């Protein structure tokens, strides 16, 4: 069966992130000039405008900054079997924020600042999504 949900269109800036996910690693950028850590990926550092950067591995741990519970599926045919599902903004311990799903918990039990950790969910041979569960 083909995967019907949106799949990341990997580009030259984001390939290292998605390649790392496939290897079970969550990576973010760190500016080689000023040390600023950033996500989502960009070519230039917003603090010093240096294009030089390295990819560092995140601890994969963070806390729930905010979350929603999707009850009405959009598009219906794609998400009908998934509702209710949780989308959260997660503050990683490294200080950057990432959007993802929280699984392994009833949607009603998710709370603010709840500790979570990354797990990896392969959805196609090329793409593995980083999702989160209670830590």
């Amino acid at each position, binding site marked *: 069966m083909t995967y019907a949900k*949106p799949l990341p*269109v990997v580009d030259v800036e*984001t390939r290292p992130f998605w390649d790392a996910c496939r290897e079970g690693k969550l990576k973010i950028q760190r500016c080689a000039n000023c040390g600023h850590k950033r996500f989502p990926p960009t070519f230039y550092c917003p603090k010093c405008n240096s294009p030089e950067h390295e990819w560092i591995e995140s601890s994969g741990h963070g806390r729930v900054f905010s979350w*929603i519970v999707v009850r*009405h599926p959009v*598009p219906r045919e*794609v998400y009908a079997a998934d509702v209710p599902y949780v989308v959260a903004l997660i503050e990683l311990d490294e200080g950057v924020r990432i959007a993802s799903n929280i699984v392994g918990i009833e949607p009603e039990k998710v709370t603010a600042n709840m500790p979570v950790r990354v797990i990896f969910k392969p959805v196609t041979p090329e793409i593995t999504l980083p999702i989160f569960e209670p830590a």
Partner: protein
Amino acid sequence: MYALRNKYAIAGIGWTDFSKKSGRTVRSLASQACINAIADAGLKVSDIDGFVSFNFNDSVPAISVATEIGVPAARYANDFLSGGNAANMIVLTAAAVIEAGLAETVLCYRAMNGRSGFRLGGGRDLSAYNITQFTAPFGWITYPQAMAMWCRRHMIEYGTNAEQLGEIAVTFRKNAEKNERAMQRDPISMADYMNSRMIVEPFRMLDICLETDGACAVLVTSAERARDMKRKPVYISGGAYGGGPDQGEDLFDALRWPDHSHNYAKYIADDLWRSAGMGPKDIDIAQIYDCFTYSIIMQLEGLGFCKEGEGGPFVQGGRIAPGGELPLNTAGGLLSEGYIHGLNHVIEAVQQLRGEAGVRQVPDIETCLTTAGAMTCGSAMVLRN
């Protein structure tokens, strides 16, 4: 900062029916709103020499409207690719364009088949490229889903609750009952609000604005010329556009936004009030961008009508209803009147300031705030009669 205080004015307004299915092209809707605005001002098509519009790839360029209605010399045309954040910015741009001498009489419009055609609120392209590769793959796709994330954060920080959101929805519906333009005029109660279907927690169906086919147009010219026209001028006293740092890579993206309890309003407040030489206390009524109930709360706080975190209690107890301290969205707002991407708020502001809002007229008003946008960037104006 805006330096044109009361030098420019809105001299005409026009709109079409607001419906779920216009059965017409977006171009013809835009043209109708523009023709109506020209007539309202008592002008001829040949008096028009500029256009400013905005769209989401769901409208027609200004030159096509100029062509359809037969404008002989369009000296300026600007089609912003933008969301509701631009609905006041286009009016400010018109004033700037005239000040610069590029045109004299400028039509600002927004036209869309927002329900029967391209639905902003429902679908987005499911291909997750650029920044959406970090949001859409997790089923975070629609604007209600985006804004619900912001709303939750305000609830976490300040205890904002469903009754407060509900009071906004119920108040605006009551306003729409008195507005013949409004799409939703059936009364709703707080119980109706609470029982409305949960779409994306914390948002219910009644927290989410309508989808509309229709168009609005606003005619801008110098205050001096406006005084010789058919209608009482409504002066643009001040305005601002912006949103501070980290506005994101598109209108959905707020991954790097510092604080989802506060939106663009906080960042443009100083510019806005300084430009108008006024403050929140000088505002008689306001038309605040309400794509969702919650966006009202952030804008009230951000623009200084109440302290940060107090927007929830502020909207309770009748304060935002007609007769209250700050009547809001007197036509029913995007929640109940219709969603012409916020430009309908400017139409209502002008009607109120002219004193021609009929049964919903708020008496003895001199100033009206309008705002546009809900998330990381937006615009606002202070209008006066």
